[in-house]
């Protein structure tokens, strides 16, 4: 086998290893880390287990934000104008969080179909509404 062939085999092996590495890593990581984006109606129509971590999107219902007297606990209702879900969160809400505007919360459901949020996401523009949420709202109006 001359060195040209040897060289080509090295290149092919390296490429195959690289691709294999990449493919393996990606499939493994994607399986566990994709966050599905769900609206309140979709939650109520399907049965999601308590350890399913996902993102809830919708609009914050007006006058639904209740802040605890002593601690950082807060609760509010997320709606898509058809169904509602109560969200519980511990911590400060982001600046752009407002009643009547869009919100995205990441977390899981508890036994009573309440959403326990681990993160409430801030958006860049106070008029921004996640695209799917906007579509849902338009459909339900």
């Amino acid at each position, binding site marked *: 086998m001359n*060195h040209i062939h040897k060289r080509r085999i090295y290149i092919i092996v*390296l490429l195959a290893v*690289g*691709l294999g590495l990449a493919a393996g890593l*990606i499939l493994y*990581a994607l399986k566990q880390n994709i966050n599905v*984006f769900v609206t309140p109606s979709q939650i109520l129509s399907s049965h999601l287990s308590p350890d399913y971590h996902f993102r809830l999107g919708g609009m914050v219902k007006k006058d639904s934000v209740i802040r605890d007297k002593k601690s950082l606990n807060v609760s509010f209702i997320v709606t898509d104008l058809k169904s509602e879900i109560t969200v519980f969160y511990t911590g400060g*809400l982001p600046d752009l969080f407002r009643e009547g505007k869009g919100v995205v919360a990441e977390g899981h459901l508890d036994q009573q179909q309440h959403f326990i949020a681990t993160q409430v996401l801030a958006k860049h523009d106070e008029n921004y509404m996640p695209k799917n949420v906007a579509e849902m709202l338009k459909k339900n109006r």
Partner: protein
Amino acid sequence: MIQLAGQLSLSFALMLALLQGLLPLWGSYRDNPYTLAAARPFALGQLALVVIAYVLLTIAFLNSDFMIAYVAENSHASLPFMYRLTAVWGAHEGSILLWILLLNVWTLLFILFEKQNSNLPLVLAILGLISFSFLCFLLLTSNPFAAAVGPQTGHDLNPLLQDPGFVIHPPMLYMGYVGFSVTFAITLAALIRGRLDANWANVARQFAIAAWCFLTLGIMLGSWWAYRVLGWGGFWFWDPVENASLLPWLSGTALIHTLALTEKRGTAKAWSALLALICFALSLLGTFLVRSGVLISAHTFANDPKRGVFLLLLLAILICAALFVYLIRLPQLSSPQKPFVPREIILLVNSILLIVAMLTILLGTLYPLIFDALHLGAISVGAPYFNLVMAPLVLLMMLVMGFAPFCAWQSQLVKRIWQLTWRKCCFCLLIMLIIWLQRMPFMTGISIGLSVWILVSVMSTFRIAPGMAFSHTGFAVFIIGIMLSSSLSTEKEVRLKPGQTTIIGPYQFLFIDTEGTSGSNFRGIRANFEVTKHNRHIVNLSPEKRIYTVRHMVMTKVDIHPSIFRDLYIALGEPYGQDDWSVRLYYKPFIRWIWAGGLLMILGGILGIIQNKKREEQNIHA
């Protein structure tokens, strides 16, 4: 008046760009020296017209000329001077104008530094065509000089952009993005000519390093700015827009290293040329992702879908044309088949690792888009995916990086490499062990051990190869900063009343009081805190909560006490009535090392350019 002048300059610039693009190509085809020589004056003319248009827009901002829609949407009479100057690139239209301006600036740099380059007309032609496409995009879909509808009082600049970081981050980032269009043009010109030699590799490498330095600076500034402004202590969020800047950075790094190989040994020419094309494609893709509104991201603005389609078409046409030329010339690009040397193998492995990293990030960024386009649902791919996928790749890269300085450019026995390195390897394993014994996470131990490995590997190369030494050192410092700050940092969110104290790490924070504060376009509340450590006064911090009156937007202004070994970071949350406030405190050790590492990498790049220049001059005089 300004509107008319601006539109005219841009239209004339468009025409000049078209001529700058087509004439030299025709001249090259027909060997006509006059049309070839036309490239430079047209390029300079286009630069002058674009500069005029940019200056006119800036003047419009300074004078608060709200008859222009773009100015009305991004400025206000009460906006501070500095932000009025820089609001020019605060939104879509202006930033595309900035892109075009910087493209012409790079063209000028190329003209100045490469006066004797025989490919100059062709390179200018390609740059002219790129400029022409962007000017079309600007004038047809995103005209910054479009007239405002009805009388306007100004909508004010987005408060998140009213920060010093905003003043430098976009221009530097764009300098990086656009810089890769120069390497693209250089490579395409050489491909059209059919001659890819050491001279091409040298010039392409110089401009690639320069572009890479700016891109690194832009990314570092973006990270630092996000840390200061977003109020949650993070410095990187794997946001699609951030990824869009990381992709050309990764392929740019691969390009620099592969061009070094081509310059030195004349091998891997086809791969280097392809990388140059890929870098540019990625920076265009980045522009598309950021500006078209297809991605759900903290950076996206509600945007016109027409723009997205235009950009995508532009991307498709430019890349297809380039690949077409590449494929035609591919048979002529075969490199001499010499047996491999260790340094060559390592550089190629490095290339592969960087490109694999780039592809995985690309996949993660585009996956939600693909899912959405195929109507398979709405998903998002978050930080856990990227962290998981990048970790093994980065660790492998660091391992390889450490061996690189010991691999010679001539054939060398593996035994010899091991002889040079085994003592250093043991030292690093010792460091890893010490870190694990301190009960720090496994990942931290490995990363720091590998960073030390890189540091000791370049220890003796600072004199011979300062570029490599500083860049690699910078990367090691960067990784140490990331790992230590993420494993040692603590965060606390509490509800405090004035007079109460809270403790984080070894520091005590006393909430003194709140007072009202105001600026030219905002009013707010400032909370005063005193920080002590073992009863010794350290600093007074004053985070604020501001309302920007024009947009009715609430913004958190954090306060940070920076230091080499740790940052103290405090942000106000929400008011809870009865004087209570939620406060977020962060104790972040070694976080400044992240950006210090970035600066060292840039220093390495600059030294690399200087060294190359010196070597080139020696070769000419020799």
